[in-house]
């Protein structure tokens, strides 16, 4: 068993030690191998570490959400329909990390096709929250978040469509960043809702998120919606917040309806810390943000119902045997291969797009999306960043919301509007709740392509919070 303190180090510190000759890249590269997986965070773990690569991420192992195609390594997206699928190519995001010297340590468990907020929709079993095994790690990037928080990986990548990086980061007490839509290539990332899906890092701290984002971002000819981040990403150093304005919208803050006591308490405490560091709090209005969930749960399922049409038993994954004809083969394969939540969303999306309902649902949801994006644009005229809790609750108990899809969807209340607006948002740990003793996340969102500034502000807020707690071992 490797030195646990080595596994706790942020990767920026590790890279510093490797460059100074204080740490052997070989020793570090193997520190995460052979640890087992009592959290069920991984769907695949490598047998042995490769030679440490050269580059800014040289020797850094990365846990990769199982939604990214990896050549020669099984990729399931948490679904039975892709059981045994070994992709013939590697996602651009993973290839870029490898080109920077990093290596794929594991493929992490996730809600099937990234649909879920608790990781209870994986065909390969629940992921346990390292802070309390009776609770969920959040989702859909639950395996990535649990792996980092539980010391199984120093950093990870995940995907965020309506909160799937930020919410699990919040529930596991780590940092999770959803970049601006288009910042990172989606090539080789199995599509859920194409106008919302975005790759991003899950890390121990804000600087590590910047370190990964710097390598991940960029335009990719194989994803025509990718733009990269103009001007690139600078590593954050700031600890001062003098003159930085943080906008708080009353109905969309720690004071909003349905927010747990631990969450609202730590939201207020963090606001106080921001003011103590010289930051200013501005009252803003996001009148349409509360409609985000309704719009999201039309747009995302509608896009998913089209994207998931490709899983039909013809080209990859499982096929139901014994069907008499092609149509029957499609239907049986899909019915046996998809889990309950995926079927529910395909049905919801197909319904919303079906003749007679298209404009009432999909058209209206897209108009709400316009209003939400406008709300943020207006807000950013009077503040630099918008702050909210990341999730209305701390990690909930496994099984608590599985019977009520709507209650589960409400987990995404604070994260969905930023996804609809395409703007970057980061979740950082605000502390442990006084009632539950569980991590609470704090979300900071900025205008499109403001990543360098956003990471700078998050770094300063992180320094003010000084969160150092680790899950019980």
């Amino acid at each position: 068993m490797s030195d646990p303190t080595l596994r706790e180090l942020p990767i920026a510190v590790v890279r510093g030690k490797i460059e100074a000759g204080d740490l052997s890249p070989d020793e570090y590269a193997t520190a995460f191998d052979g640890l087992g997986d009592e959290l069920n965070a991984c769907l695949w773990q490598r047998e042995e570490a490769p030679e440490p690569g050269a580059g800014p991420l040289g020797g850094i192992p990365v846990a990769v959400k199982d939604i990214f195609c990896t050549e020669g390594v099984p990729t399931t997206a948490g679904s039975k329909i892709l059981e045994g699928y070994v992709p013939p190519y590697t996602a651009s995001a993973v290839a870029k990390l490898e080109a920077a010297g990093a290596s794929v340590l594991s493929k992490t468990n996730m809600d099937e096709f990234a649909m879920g907020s608790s990781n209870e929709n994986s065909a390969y079993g629940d992921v346990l929250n390292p802070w309390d095994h009776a609770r969920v790690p959040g989702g859909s990037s639950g395996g990535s978040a649990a792996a980092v928080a539980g010391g199984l990986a120093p950093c990870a990548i995940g995907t965020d469509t309506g909160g799937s990086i930020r919410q699990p980061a919040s529930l596991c007490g780590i940092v999770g960043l959803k970049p601006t839509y288009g910042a990172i290539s989606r090539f080789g990332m199995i599509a859920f809702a194409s106008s919302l899906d975005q790759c991003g890092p899950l890390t121990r701290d804000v600087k590590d998120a910047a370190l990964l984002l710097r390598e991940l971002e960029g335009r990719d000819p194989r994803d025509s919606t990718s733009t990269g981040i103009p001007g690139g990403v600078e590593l954050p150093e700031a600890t001062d917040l003098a003159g930085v304005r943080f906008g708080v919208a009353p109905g969309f803050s720690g004071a909003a309806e349905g927010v747990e006591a631990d969450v609202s308490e730590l939201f207020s405490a963090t606001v106080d810390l921001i003011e103590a560091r010289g930051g200013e709090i501005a009252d803003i209005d996001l009148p349409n943000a509360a409609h985000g969930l309704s719009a999201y749960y039309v747009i995302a399922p509608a896009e998913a119902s089209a994207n998931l049409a490709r899983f039909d038993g013809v080209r990859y994954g499982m096929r139901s045997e014994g069907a008499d004809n092609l149509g029957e083969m499609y239907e049986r394969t899909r019915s046996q291969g998809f889990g309950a939540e995926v079927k529910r969303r395909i049905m919801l999306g197909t319904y919303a797009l079906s003749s007679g309902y298209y404009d009432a649902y999909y058209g209206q949801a897209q108009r709400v999306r316009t209003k939400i994006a406008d709300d943020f644009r207006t807000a950013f005229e009077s503040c630099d960043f918008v702050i909210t809790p990341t999730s209305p609750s701390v990690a909930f108990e496994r099984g608590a919301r599985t019977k009520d899809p709507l209650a589960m969807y409400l987990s995404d209340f604070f994260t969905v509007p930023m996804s609809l607006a395409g703007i970057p948002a980061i979740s950082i740990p605000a502390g442990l709740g006084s009632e539950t003793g569980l991590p609470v996340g704090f979300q900071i969102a900025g205008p499109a392509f403001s990543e360098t500034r956003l990471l700078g502000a998050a770094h300063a807020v992180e320094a003010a919070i000084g969160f150092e707690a680790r899950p019980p071992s």
Partner: protein
Amino acid sequence: MIDREQVLHVARLARLELSHAEVETIASELSGILKHVDRISELDLEGVEPTSHVVALENVLRADEPRPSLDRKRALAPAPDPVDGAFRVPSPGPS
């Protein structure tokens, strides 16, 4: 409210074969979700442009130059029933 018939119609469109139990559950779950979603149908958004893509992008073009694509053998390797360089499927049957 979504009834049984509507669920079966949508399932046909989505190429899903649902069990009796699934039809019942999905009918009630979709009704609950749509009740929540219906709140936006009450908003007056007359004249608001719908957003389908959030980042302003012009047509993205590249030079039309031939380049290698995925090798046929590798593309077929993950298929459930590859035969003679193609994907074999059951007959579509009588139409």
